[in-house]
């Protein structure tokens, strides 16, 4: 019963802060609202007994990526709070692509039957069971993802280096 109320509360917070993130004029405020959204989503992970995923979500998104976002925004526009307006063509393109995406999502959701949420007693979200599955069943995708991360890391170093000597 409590978890149901928590679910509604977290969903409310997540949606509200996501909307506030889109509508706030100041980019720094947007970033902070996005951090709040991430926290609400991490709360959903905890409700589903996936503590590892939840905490990694907080460490990676709220703790690292959003700090870098904030860093870049603070570096770029120190005083002006309002971004230059986009042209009408860009706005139209944005609306159309968002509409198409929502159409696809609704179409996909409509045909899938919603199963009962995984029972909270399952231990699939624990570190040990997650590790076992990652290194046995999903070893290849796991390794491929790490190679992708390595490649992007090398790319970032390469781009930030001004001249090669």
């Amino acid at each position, binding site marked *: 019963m409590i978890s149901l109320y928590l679910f509604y509360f977290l969903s409310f917070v997540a949606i509200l802060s996501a909307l506030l993130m889109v509508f706030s004029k*100041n980019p*720094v*405020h947007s970033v*902070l609202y996005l*951090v709040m959204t991430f926290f609400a989503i991490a709360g959903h992970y905890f409700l589903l007994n996936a*503590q*590892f995923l939840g*905490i*990694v979500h*907080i*460490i990676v998104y*709220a*703790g*690292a990526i959003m*700090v*870098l976002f*904030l*860093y870049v925004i*603070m*570096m770029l526009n*120190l*005083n002006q709070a309002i971004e230059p307006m986009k042209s009408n063509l860009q706005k139209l393109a944005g609306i159309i692509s968002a509409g198409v995406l929502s159409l696809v999502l609704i179409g996909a959701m409509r045909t899938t039957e919603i199963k009962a949420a995984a029972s909270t007693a399952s231990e699939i979200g*624990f*570190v040990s069971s997650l590790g076992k599955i990652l290194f046995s069943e999903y070893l290849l995708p796991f390794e491929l993802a790490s190679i992708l991360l390595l490649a992007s890391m090398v790319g970032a170093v390469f781009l930030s280096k001004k001249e090669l000597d």
Partner: protein
Amino acid sequence: MISFILYKFLFALIFFVVALVVAMYSTYGERKVAAFMQDRVGPNRAGPFGILQPLADGVKMFMKEEVIPNTSDRKLFLLGPSLAMLTALMTGVVIPWGSPMNFNGHTFPLQLTDINIGILYVFGVVSLGVYGIMIGGWASNNKYSLLGALRASSQMISYEIAMGLAIIALVMKTGTLSLGAIVSQQHHTWNVFIQPLSFLIFLICAFAETNRAPFDLPECETELVGGYHTEYSSMKLGFYLFAEYINMFISSAIISCLYFGGYNIPFQDHLHLSGNLLPILQFLVLFAKILFFIFFFMWVRWTIPRFRYDQLMNLGWKGLLPLAILNILITGVVLWATGAFK
């Protein structure tokens, strides 16, 4: 159920008060240690040996005029110090203070919660600690504050990586992420003897994460006036300073738990203690360890001069990070050779 919640609430409240008192008297301790190292007397006017000095400072902080700059982002300006305080106190819930106590057949664990990802929780909260400083520094709308905030964020992100990798080697050895289990594993041998390199890296990173000297560049007064809290006054400044001391207290507690046996007393099996005496003694021993590390933080502050910023970054990325990876490699090889991997 109600009594359970009441107990946890009471425990959290006690922790909160203890953390605040320790932070309060750390300011006094810091001045006394500084005075001792510089051959001075230190605060000695308020009460015997100046023991009431923290109270006088607290009253002064509350009585000072509160200035909020007109050009600042008012809401975020207020949010900054609150967040700094919140993230400083949040880590405390996973620290085990002693083995469970027994009263009338009821067991009372001396740990708020032993979540199975305790270390990751600590790590997550530490990674959030930078928000208080960044938001405060940006909302002040002052170039020195902003520079301090930017320094703090890049410093904390850089040292978090080495810190995380140092912990990974430790976790490989212990095989668990729960802080309670790690402490009880150190019943005979402290982890510092098994993972000395990991301890060294973690200690250095703890200095950087708490923004303490020699890594206190975010508030470097010779370059940045007051750093990220230049525009703050009265108790909001007090919150920032307090958060630093609470961070120091929590870091010392985490270091004691991860590497120095936590509440374990050396040769405690030979003491033949029983009942509730053991948990009380364990708590006192853990506290002694924590106080030693707080003293260590101060000792370093008044001994080692401040780094230059590029030196700081070089140490983090070119020194500690490869060292931490090497440590993971060595740990892996040793574990494999001793057949710890099944």
